[in-house]
Protein backbone atom coordinates (compact mmCIF):
# COMPACT_ATOMS: atom_id res chain seq x y z
CA UNK A 1 0.00 0.00 0.00
CA UNK A 2 1.38 3.38 -0.92
CA UNK A 3 1.47 4.94 2.52
CA UNK A 4 3.75 7.83 1.71
CA UNK A 5 1.87 9.07 -1.29
CA UNK A 6 -1.52 8.57 0.22
CA UNK A 7 -3.28 11.76 1.07
CA UNK A 8 -1.36 14.29 3.08
CA UNK A 9 -3.36 15.95 5.77
CA UNK A 10 -5.29 18.92 4.52
CA UNK A 11 -5.84 21.77 6.92
CA UNK A 12 -8.24 24.66 6.55
CA UNK A 13 -6.77 27.76 8.23
CA UNK A 14 -9.00 30.71 9.09
CA UNK A 15 -7.69 34.14 10.05
CA UNK A 16 -8.74 37.65 9.12
CA UNK A 17 -5.15 38.96 9.20
CA UNK A 18 -3.12 38.45 6.03
CA UNK A 19 0.04 38.42 8.07
CA UNK A 20 -1.25 35.67 10.34
CA UNK A 21 -2.52 33.66 7.38
CA UNK A 22 0.91 33.77 5.83
CA UNK A 23 2.48 32.61 9.07
CA UNK A 24 0.11 29.74 9.74
CA UNK A 25 0.24 28.64 6.13
CA UNK A 26 4.02 28.40 6.22
CA UNK A 27 3.98 26.66 9.59
CA UNK A 28 1.55 24.07 8.29
CA UNK A 29 3.46 23.56 5.04
CA UNK A 30 6.61 23.06 7.03
CA UNK A 31 4.72 20.42 9.00
CA UNK A 32 3.93 18.62 5.73
CA UNK A 33 0.31 19.61 5.55
CA UNK A 34 -1.63 20.83 2.60
CA UNK A 35 -3.17 24.16 3.46
CA UNK A 36 -6.13 26.20 2.36
CA UNK A 37 -6.45 29.63 3.96
CA UNK A 38 -9.57 31.76 4.15
CA UNK A 39 -10.09 35.11 5.77
CA UNK A 40 -13.38 34.57 7.55
CA UNK A 41 -15.57 32.03 9.29
CA UNK A 42 -18.26 32.32 6.66
CA UNK A 43 -15.78 31.62 3.88
CA UNK A 44 -14.59 28.62 5.85
CA UNK A 45 -18.12 27.27 6.00
CA UNK A 46 -18.57 27.93 2.30
CA UNK A 47 -15.41 26.07 1.54
CA UNK A 48 -16.60 23.11 3.55
CA UNK A 49 -19.82 23.15 1.59
CA UNK A 50 -22.09 24.41 4.26
CA UNK A 51 -24.49 26.97 3.05
CA UNK A 52 -25.57 29.58 5.51
CA UNK A 53 -29.24 30.37 5.16
CA UNK A 54 -29.53 34.08 4.53
CA UNK A 55 -32.79 34.41 6.39
CA UNK A 56 -31.88 32.33 9.37
CA UNK A 57 -28.15 32.17 10.01
CA UNK A 58 -28.73 29.43 12.54
CA UNK A 59 -29.81 27.09 9.80
CA UNK A 60 -27.00 25.35 8.03
CA UNK A 61 -27.53 23.04 5.18
CA UNK A 62 -25.19 21.28 2.86
CA UNK A 63 -25.10 23.18 -0.36
CA UNK A 64 -26.38 21.15 -3.27
CA UNK A 65 -24.13 23.11 -5.60
CA UNK A 66 -20.83 22.41 -3.96
CA UNK A 67 -19.63 18.88 -4.37
CA UNK A 68 -17.22 18.58 -1.49
CA UNK A 69 -14.17 17.02 -3.14
CA UNK A 70 -11.71 18.20 -0.61
CA UNK A 71 -11.32 16.21 2.54
CA UNK A 72 -10.41 18.49 5.40
CA UNK A 73 -8.63 16.82 8.26
CA UNK A 74 -8.47 19.79 10.58
CA UNK A 75 -9.69 23.35 10.93
CA UNK A 76 -7.42 25.84 12.65
CA UNK A 77 -8.96 29.21 13.31
CA UNK A 78 -8.18 32.51 14.95
CA UNK A 79 -10.48 33.37 17.83
CA UNK A 80 -10.83 37.14 17.33
CA UNK A 81 -12.34 37.80 13.97
CA UNK A 82 -14.93 40.35 12.90
CA UNK A 83 -18.38 38.92 12.20
CA UNK A 84 -18.12 35.23 12.94
CA UNK A 85 -15.56 34.59 15.66
CA UNK A 86 -13.51 31.42 15.85
CA UNK A 87 -15.78 30.28 18.63
CA UNK A 88 -18.87 30.83 16.45
CA UNK A 89 -17.23 28.86 13.68
CA UNK A 90 -16.38 26.07 16.09
CA UNK A 91 -20.00 25.87 17.19
CA UNK A 92 -21.32 25.79 13.66
CA UNK A 93 -18.95 23.02 12.69
CA UNK A 94 -19.82 20.95 15.75
CA UNK A 95 -23.52 21.46 15.16
CA UNK A 96 -23.29 20.20 11.61
CA UNK A 97 -23.92 16.51 11.17
CA UNK A 98 -21.65 16.37 8.16
CA UNK A 99 -18.63 18.07 9.65
CA UNK A 100 -18.68 17.73 13.40
CA UNK A 101 -16.05 15.04 13.27
CA UNK A 102 -13.50 17.47 11.85
CA UNK A 103 -11.15 18.49 14.67
CA UNK A 104 -11.04 22.21 15.32
CA UNK A 105 -8.15 24.10 16.88
CA UNK A 106 -8.44 27.67 18.12
CA UNK A 107 -5.61 30.23 18.09
CA UNK A 108 -5.51 33.43 20.07
CA UNK A 109 -2.96 36.02 21.03
CA UNK A 110 -4.73 36.49 24.33
CA UNK A 111 -4.38 34.14 27.24
CA UNK A 112 -7.87 34.23 28.73
CA UNK A 113 -8.57 31.09 30.77
CA UNK A 114 -12.35 31.50 30.54
CA UNK A 115 -12.09 31.75 26.78
CA UNK A 116 -9.88 28.70 26.58
CA UNK A 117 -12.17 26.50 28.65
CA UNK A 118 -15.23 27.66 26.76
CA UNK A 119 -13.62 26.63 23.48
CA UNK A 120 -12.48 23.29 24.80
CA UNK A 121 -15.93 22.63 26.24
CA UNK A 122 -17.48 23.39 22.89
CA UNK A 123 -15.31 20.70 21.35
CA UNK A 124 -12.07 22.37 20.30
CA UNK A 125 -9.23 19.90 20.42
CA UNK A 126 -6.51 22.40 21.22
CA UNK A 127 -6.10 26.04 22.02
CA UNK A 128 -2.88 27.57 20.77
CA UNK A 129 -1.51 30.85 22.01
CA UNK A 130 -0.06 33.02 19.31
CA UNK A 131 2.55 33.25 18.05
CA UNK A 132 2.07 29.63 17.10
CA UNK A 133 5.30 27.67 16.93
CA UNK A 134 6.34 24.70 14.82
CA UNK A 135 6.43 22.57 17.96
CA UNK A 136 2.76 23.34 18.63
CA UNK A 137 1.77 21.81 15.33
CA UNK A 138 3.10 18.41 16.28
CA UNK A 139 0.07 18.20 18.56
CA UNK A 140 -2.19 18.22 15.54
CA UNK A 141 -1.26 14.84 14.08
CA UNK A 142 -3.17 12.66 16.55
CA UNK A 143 -6.33 14.67 15.98
CA UNK A 144 -6.01 14.46 12.23
CA UNK A 145 -5.35 10.74 12.44
CA UNK A 146 -8.72 10.27 14.04
CA UNK A 147 -10.52 11.58 11.01
CA UNK A 148 -8.61 9.23 8.76
CA UNK A 149 -9.58 6.42 11.08
CA UNK A 150 -13.23 7.29 10.73
CA UNK A 151 -13.00 7.64 6.98
CA UNK A 152 -11.42 4.24 6.67
CA UNK A 153 -14.30 2.64 8.51
CA UNK A 154 -16.47 3.46 5.57
CA UNK A 155 -14.29 1.48 3.21
CA UNK A 156 -14.73 -2.31 2.85
CA UNK A 157 -12.40 -4.43 4.94
CA UNK A 158 -9.19 -5.40 3.21
CA UNK A 159 -6.61 -8.07 3.92
CA UNK A 160 -6.09 -6.90 7.42
CA UNK A 161 -4.49 -10.00 8.92
CA UNK A 162 -1.48 -9.92 6.64
CA UNK A 163 -0.86 -6.26 7.35
CA UNK A 164 -0.51 -6.80 11.05
CA UNK A 165 2.20 -9.39 10.84
CA UNK A 166 4.52 -6.99 8.99
CA UNK A 167 7.29 -6.11 11.35
CA UNK A 168 8.30 -2.60 12.20
CA UNK A 169 5.45 -0.78 10.61
CA UNK A 170 6.59 2.80 10.73
CA UNK A 171 3.55 4.46 9.30
CA UNK A 172 0.85 5.13 11.82
CA UNK A 173 -1.62 5.11 8.97
CA UNK A 174 -0.91 1.47 8.28
CA UNK A 175 -1.48 0.56 11.88
CA UNK A 176 -4.70 2.47 12.14
CA UNK A 177 -6.16 1.23 8.89
CA UNK A 178 -6.07 -2.34 9.95
CA UNK A 179 -7.89 -1.84 13.19
CA UNK A 180 -11.63 -1.77 13.35
CA UNK A 181 -12.58 1.79 13.47
CA UNK A 182 -15.23 2.93 15.76
CA UNK A 183 -13.85 0.87 18.59
CA UNK A 184 -11.80 2.73 21.13
CA UNK A 185 -8.41 1.17 21.41
CA UNK A 186 -6.66 -0.05 24.49
CA UNK A 187 -3.25 1.60 24.69
CA UNK A 188 -1.40 -1.65 25.09
CA UNK A 189 -2.71 -2.84 21.74
CA UNK A 190 -1.20 0.22 20.19
CA UNK A 191 2.04 -0.02 22.08
CA UNK A 192 2.76 -3.43 20.69
CA UNK A 193 1.94 -2.31 17.20
CA UNK A 194 3.67 0.99 17.10
CA UNK A 195 7.27 0.01 17.17
CA UNK A 196 8.67 3.36 16.27
CA UNK A 197 9.68 6.47 18.15
CA UNK A 198 8.44 7.42 21.56
CA UNK A 199 6.99 10.54 20.00
CA UNK A 200 4.49 8.53 18.06
CA UNK A 201 3.70 6.43 21.06
CA UNK A 202 3.08 9.50 23.12
CA UNK A 203 0.84 10.80 20.38
CA UNK A 204 -1.11 7.56 20.44
CA UNK A 205 -1.44 7.59 24.18
CA UNK A 206 -2.60 11.14 24.05
CA UNK A 207 -5.33 10.10 21.69
CA UNK A 208 -6.43 7.44 24.12
CA UNK A 209 -6.16 9.47 27.25
CA UNK A 210 -8.07 12.42 25.92
CA UNK A 211 -10.97 10.31 24.80
CA UNK A 212 -13.80 11.03 27.11
CA UNK A 213 -15.37 7.62 26.97
CA UNK A 214 -13.21 4.58 26.96
CA UNK A 215 -15.25 1.48 26.44
CA UNK A 216 -13.35 -1.78 26.67
CA UNK A 217 -12.68 -3.32 23.31
CA UNK A 218 -14.43 -6.57 22.65
CA UNK A 219 -14.69 -7.14 18.96
CA UNK A 220 -11.19 -6.54 17.81
CA UNK A 221 -10.26 -9.49 15.71
CA UNK A 222 -6.72 -8.47 15.00
CA UNK A 223 -3.94 -10.11 16.82
CA UNK A 224 -0.32 -9.34 17.19
Amino acid at each position, binding site marked *: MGMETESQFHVLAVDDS*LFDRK*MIERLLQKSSCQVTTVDSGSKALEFLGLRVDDEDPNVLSTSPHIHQEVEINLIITDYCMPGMTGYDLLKKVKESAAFKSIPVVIMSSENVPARISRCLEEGAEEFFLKPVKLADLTKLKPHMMKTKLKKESEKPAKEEESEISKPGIEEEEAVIEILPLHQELESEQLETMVSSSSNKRKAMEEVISTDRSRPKYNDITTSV
Partner: protein
Amino acid sequence: MDLVQMQKSLQDYTKSLFLEGILDSQFLQLQQLQDESNPDFVSQVVTLFFQDSDRILNDLSLSLGQQVVDFKKVDPHVHQLKGSSSSIGAQRVKNACVVFRNFCEQQNVEACHRCLQQVKQEYYLVKNRLETLFKLEQQIVASGGMIPAVELGF
Protein backbone atom coordinates in the same frame (compact mmCIF):
# COMPACT_ATOMS: atom_id res chain seq x y z
CA MET B 1 35.29 43.11 2.68
CA ASP B 2 35.70 39.50 1.76
CA LEU B 3 32.97 36.93 2.06
CA VAL B 4 34.08 35.44 5.35
CA GLN B 5 34.28 38.89 6.91
CA MET B 6 30.83 39.73 5.65
CA GLN B 7 29.42 36.55 7.09
CA LYS B 8 31.08 37.25 10.43
CA SER B 9 29.67 40.78 10.40
CA LEU B 10 26.21 39.43 9.75
CA GLN B 11 26.46 36.95 12.59
CA ASP B 12 27.75 39.59 15.00
CA TYR B 13 25.09 42.00 13.90
CA THR B 14 22.31 39.46 14.35
CA LYS B 15 23.63 38.49 17.76
CA SER B 16 23.66 42.09 18.87
CA LEU B 17 19.99 42.43 18.01
CA PHE B 18 19.20 39.55 20.32
CA LEU B 19 21.48 40.83 23.05
CA GLU B 20 19.86 44.25 22.94
CA GLY B 21 16.44 42.64 23.21
CA ILE B 22 15.35 44.13 19.90
CA LEU B 23 14.64 40.64 18.60
CA ASP B 24 13.63 37.58 20.57
CA SER B 25 13.60 33.85 19.89
CA GLN B 26 10.46 34.13 17.80
CA PHE B 27 12.67 35.57 15.06
CA LEU B 28 14.57 32.28 15.10
CA GLN B 29 11.26 30.48 14.60
CA LEU B 30 10.79 32.53 11.45
CA GLN B 31 14.20 31.54 10.19
CA GLN B 32 13.33 27.91 10.75
CA LEU B 33 10.41 28.32 8.38
CA GLN B 34 12.71 29.49 5.61
CA ASP B 35 14.19 26.82 3.38
CA GLU B 36 15.02 26.08 -0.25
CA SER B 37 11.35 25.94 -1.14
CA ASN B 38 10.70 29.28 0.56
CA PRO B 39 14.04 31.09 0.48
CA ASP B 40 12.60 34.56 1.03
CA PHE B 41 10.10 33.77 3.70
CA VAL B 42 11.62 35.90 6.43
CA SER B 43 11.96 39.02 4.31
CA GLN B 44 8.44 38.46 2.94
CA VAL B 45 6.78 38.35 6.33
CA VAL B 46 8.93 41.14 7.67
CA THR B 47 7.91 43.27 4.69
CA LEU B 48 4.27 42.47 5.41
CA PHE B 49 4.88 43.43 9.01
CA PHE B 50 6.34 46.80 7.93
CA GLN B 51 3.40 47.48 5.64
CA ASP B 52 0.83 46.55 8.28
CA SER B 53 2.60 48.52 10.97
CA ASP B 54 3.04 51.66 8.91
CA ARG B 55 -0.67 51.63 8.28
CA ILE B 56 -1.57 50.92 11.90
CA LEU B 57 0.67 53.63 13.28
CA ASN B 58 -0.86 56.07 10.88
CA ASP B 59 -4.38 55.09 11.94
CA LEU B 60 -3.38 55.35 15.58
CA SER B 61 -2.02 58.85 15.11
CA LEU B 62 -5.30 59.84 13.51
CA SER B 63 -7.49 58.20 16.15
CA LEU B 64 -5.56 59.64 19.06
CA GLY B 65 -5.56 63.05 17.41
CA GLN B 66 -9.33 63.29 17.52
CA GLN B 67 -11.08 65.72 19.83
CA VAL B 68 -12.81 62.84 21.49
CA VAL B 69 -10.71 59.71 21.38
CA ASP B 70 -12.64 56.57 20.52
CA PHE B 71 -10.80 53.86 22.40
CA LYS B 72 -12.93 51.24 20.71
CA LYS B 73 -11.01 52.13 17.59
CA VAL B 74 -7.62 52.55 19.22
CA ASP B 75 -7.48 49.26 21.11
CA PRO B 76 -7.94 46.84 18.17
CA HIS B 77 -5.09 48.57 16.32
CA VAL B 78 -2.75 48.20 19.25
CA HIS B 79 -3.89 44.62 19.67
CA GLN B 80 -3.05 43.85 16.06
CA LEU B 81 0.33 45.52 16.26
CA LYS B 82 1.10 43.65 19.44
CA GLY B 83 0.21 40.41 17.69
CA SER B 84 2.26 40.93 14.57
CA SER B 85 5.30 42.30 16.38
CA SER B 86 5.13 39.30 18.66
CA SER B 87 5.00 36.94 15.68
CA ILE B 88 8.04 38.60 14.12
CA GLY B 89 10.02 38.56 17.32
CA ALA B 90 10.10 42.35 17.63
CA GLN B 91 10.21 42.14 21.39
CA ARG B 92 10.50 45.78 22.31
CA VAL B 93 7.68 46.80 20.02
CA LYS B 94 5.51 44.10 21.54
CA ASN B 95 6.33 45.21 25.08
CA ALA B 96 5.55 48.80 24.23
CA CYS B 97 2.19 47.66 22.86
CA VAL B 98 1.40 45.84 26.09
CA VAL B 99 1.91 49.05 28.05
CA PHE B 100 -0.10 50.94 25.46
CA ARG B 101 -3.06 48.58 25.82
CA ASN B 102 -3.10 49.01 29.56
CA PHE B 103 -3.49 52.73 29.17
CA CYS B 104 -6.15 52.22 26.51
CA GLU B 105 -8.11 50.19 29.02
CA GLN B 106 -7.80 53.04 31.47
CA GLN B 107 -8.80 55.44 28.72
CA ASN B 108 -5.87 57.64 29.62
CA VAL B 109 -5.38 59.85 26.56
CA GLU B 110 -2.21 61.56 27.76
CA ALA B 111 -0.49 58.32 28.55
CA CYS B 112 -1.65 56.83 25.26
CA HIS B 113 0.00 59.66 23.36
CA ARG B 114 3.24 58.89 25.15
CA CYS B 115 2.79 55.19 24.46
CA LEU B 116 2.30 55.83 20.79
CA GLN B 117 5.56 57.74 20.70
CA GLN B 118 7.30 54.91 22.48
CA VAL B 119 5.88 52.31 20.10
CA LYS B 120 6.91 54.37 17.10
CA GLN B 121 10.41 54.73 18.47
CA GLU B 122 10.82 51.00 19.01
CA TYR B 123 9.25 50.24 15.67
CA TYR B 124 11.57 52.54 13.69
CA LEU B 125 14.48 51.06 15.56
CA VAL B 126 13.65 47.45 14.69
CA LYS B 127 12.72 48.43 11.16
CA ASN B 128 16.06 50.11 10.70
CA ARG B 129 17.98 47.19 12.17
CA LEU B 130 16.15 44.57 10.12
CA GLU B 131 16.63 46.55 6.93
CA THR B 132 20.35 46.64 7.66
CA LEU B 133 20.30 42.92 8.36
CA PHE B 134 18.65 42.17 5.03
CA LYS B 135 21.16 44.39 3.23
CA LEU B 136 24.01 42.46 4.78
CA GLU B 137 22.38 39.22 3.68
CA GLN B 138 21.90 40.51 0.16
CA GLN B 139 25.56 41.51 -0.05
CA ILE B 140 26.60 38.03 0.97
CA VAL B 141 24.29 36.35 -1.51
CA ALA B 142 25.42 38.73 -4.26
CA SER B 143 29.01 37.70 -3.58
CA GLY B 144 28.01 34.10 -4.07
CA GLY B 145 28.00 33.23 -0.38
CA MET B 146 25.60 31.48 1.96
CA ILE B 147 23.85 33.04 4.90
CA PRO B 148 25.38 31.51 8.01
CA ALA B 149 22.99 29.98 10.53
CA VAL B 150 22.64 32.01 13.67
CA GLU B 151 24.45 30.46 16.57
CA LEU B 152 23.31 31.77 19.87
CA GLY B 153 25.78 30.39 22.34
CA PHE B 154 25.05 32.89 25.07
